[in-house]
């Protein structure tokens, strides 16, 4: 865990997403997909939690959408701005078992933590099938799709307006899958999507992991602010998560 500063080197608009590439003042020794950073939002009191989208020793990037005052302030910071950050935080995605097939289920900007995970797993030789749903075709910009395809990730898309892929929800794609081999599913998206996906995967003997978000202050488990309800009581997104086992959430009313 590192408290440092990052300089915004590049900002790109990718369809409805903002991609923010930052150079780090101190080297990031290790991080894994599914972990997150707290990033200063200029003019706001609290830093904002953002999934690591891509990262290396000297850099980190974030894929985000404007959700409120904080993300708006981050996105409107000009190139060259220095922002405080703390990273890497939380527990990333646990690896699949030997020979497991991997299904990733993303809703909209829920692709952010799943993108580096898909790339990492493909590199390790895993068969990865990404199901990704969103409003319309603008949510799947080529700079995100092309590298995934090049890495050998199988991609199935769903859009609400049918402008690309299947018309409907990403969970409709999930419902249409048959699972022959042992499979692990990793999910990230709106809670309604997560709940539906867990319902579909229940009783199929599939291990599931979900990345969650919640309003956050300390990011390190000190303030108990980012609690979510699980089957074993309140857990903290920052310290116990952000990745949780699906069965912990199933029916917990999260």
């Amino acid at each position, binding site marked *: *865990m*590192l*408290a440092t500063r990052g300089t915004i080197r590049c900002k790109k608009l990718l369809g409805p997403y903002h991609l923010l590439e930052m150079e780090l003042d101190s080297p990031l020794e290790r991080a894994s997909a599914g972990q997150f950073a707290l990033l*200063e939002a200029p003019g*706001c*009191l*609290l*830093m904002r939690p953002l999934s690591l989208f891509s990262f290396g020793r000297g850099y980190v990037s974030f894929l985000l959408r404007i959700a409120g*005052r*904080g993300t708006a302030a981050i996105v409107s910071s000009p190139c060259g701005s220095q922002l*405080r950050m*703390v990273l890497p935080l939380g527990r990333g995605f646990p690896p699949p078992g030997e020979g497991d097939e991997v299904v990733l289920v993303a809703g909209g900007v829920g692709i952010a933590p799943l993108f580096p995970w898909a790339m990492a797993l493909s590199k390790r030789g895993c068969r990865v099938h990404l199901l990704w749903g969103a409003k319309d075709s603008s949510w799947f910009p080529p700079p995100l799709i092309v590298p995934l395809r090049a890495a050998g990730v199988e991609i199935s898309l769903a859009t609400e307006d049918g402008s690309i892929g299947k018309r409907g929800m990403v969970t409709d794609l999930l419902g249409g899958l048959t699972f022959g081999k042992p499979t692990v599913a990793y999910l990230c998206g709106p809670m309604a999507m997560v709940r539906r996906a867990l319902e579909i995967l229940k009783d199929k003997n599939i291990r599931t992991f979900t990345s969650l978000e*919640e*309003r*956050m*202050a*300390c*990011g*390190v*488990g*000190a*303030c*108990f*602010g*980012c*609690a*979510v*309800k699980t089957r074993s*009581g*309140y857990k903290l997104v920052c*310290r116990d998560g952000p990745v949780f086992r699906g069965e912990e959430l199933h029916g917990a009313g999260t």
Partner: protein
Amino acid sequence: MEPGLEVKLGPLQLRTPVMPASGTFGYGDEYKDLIPVEVLGAVVTKSISLTPSPGNPPPRLWEVEGGLINSIGLQNVGIDAFLEGKLPSLRELGVPIIVSFFGMTEDEYPRCAERLCRAEGIAALEANLSCPHVKRGGMAFGAQPEVVQRITRAVKEVAGLPLLVKLPPDPFHILEIAEGAVYGGADALTLANTLPAMVVDIERQKPSLGGGVGGLSGPALKPVALRIVYEVSRKLQVPIVASGGIRSASDAVEFIMVGATALQVGTATFADPMTIPRVVEGLKTFLKDRGYDRLQKLQGIIHGTRMESVGRGRKG
């Protein structure tokens, strides 16, 4: 020569005057990778109680203009899990440990304090009197001078450790409340806790926080806390640990000048985990630049007299 930052809170000696506020530093080891322990005067734990408490439903946090409203609901692991699971690693930090505690009822305060005093490695206790008193319709224990005095006395009777009493920031009654704590035997006062507050979701037509209401902390609280410390230190002779919106060394100096002996940094650690080291460094620079050899020379300077002696009761 480095200016001296050592302070004394009654019998408790601290190497720097800055410590984290309870509830913002977990059980001490969450920030240990980031914050060098040498800068900490003490570690103040999250408030614990005799029985574990699950806390409030989410969302528990709401950022507002100039502050943060939290509705954690005093979630804590309970005293047994604290003594077994948390205290051993806290002791290894090599910093005085101040354990914050609370009771659901008046008599839980001394019961909890007694058990803490039997444990090894605790330097002092901080009684959190800002939690709601169920028998009195949820009004904070700390809102009523006679209750404050009774709880403080009951704790002091069983506890052989220095006792800090943390009070709510009631600007109109703070003197009576603080007197209650001093007459009850408090060794120091922590002034002050969060201010009761809320936010409304106008679309859903209900409170935004899962717990309905919460407590406001952060920069918005600073002028209020400053005046509270000023008022209490003017009238009562008791060491004060100031808490309320401290983000910088200059904030800290303001509190020292109105009479605080030590300082707690809370919400600012969330905005920047390096706040405490920055404040400590900034205090040294401030003193050095102005030719002071120790922090205590500034203490209460705004009142026209320095207050280095520590007694009890009202000042003549």
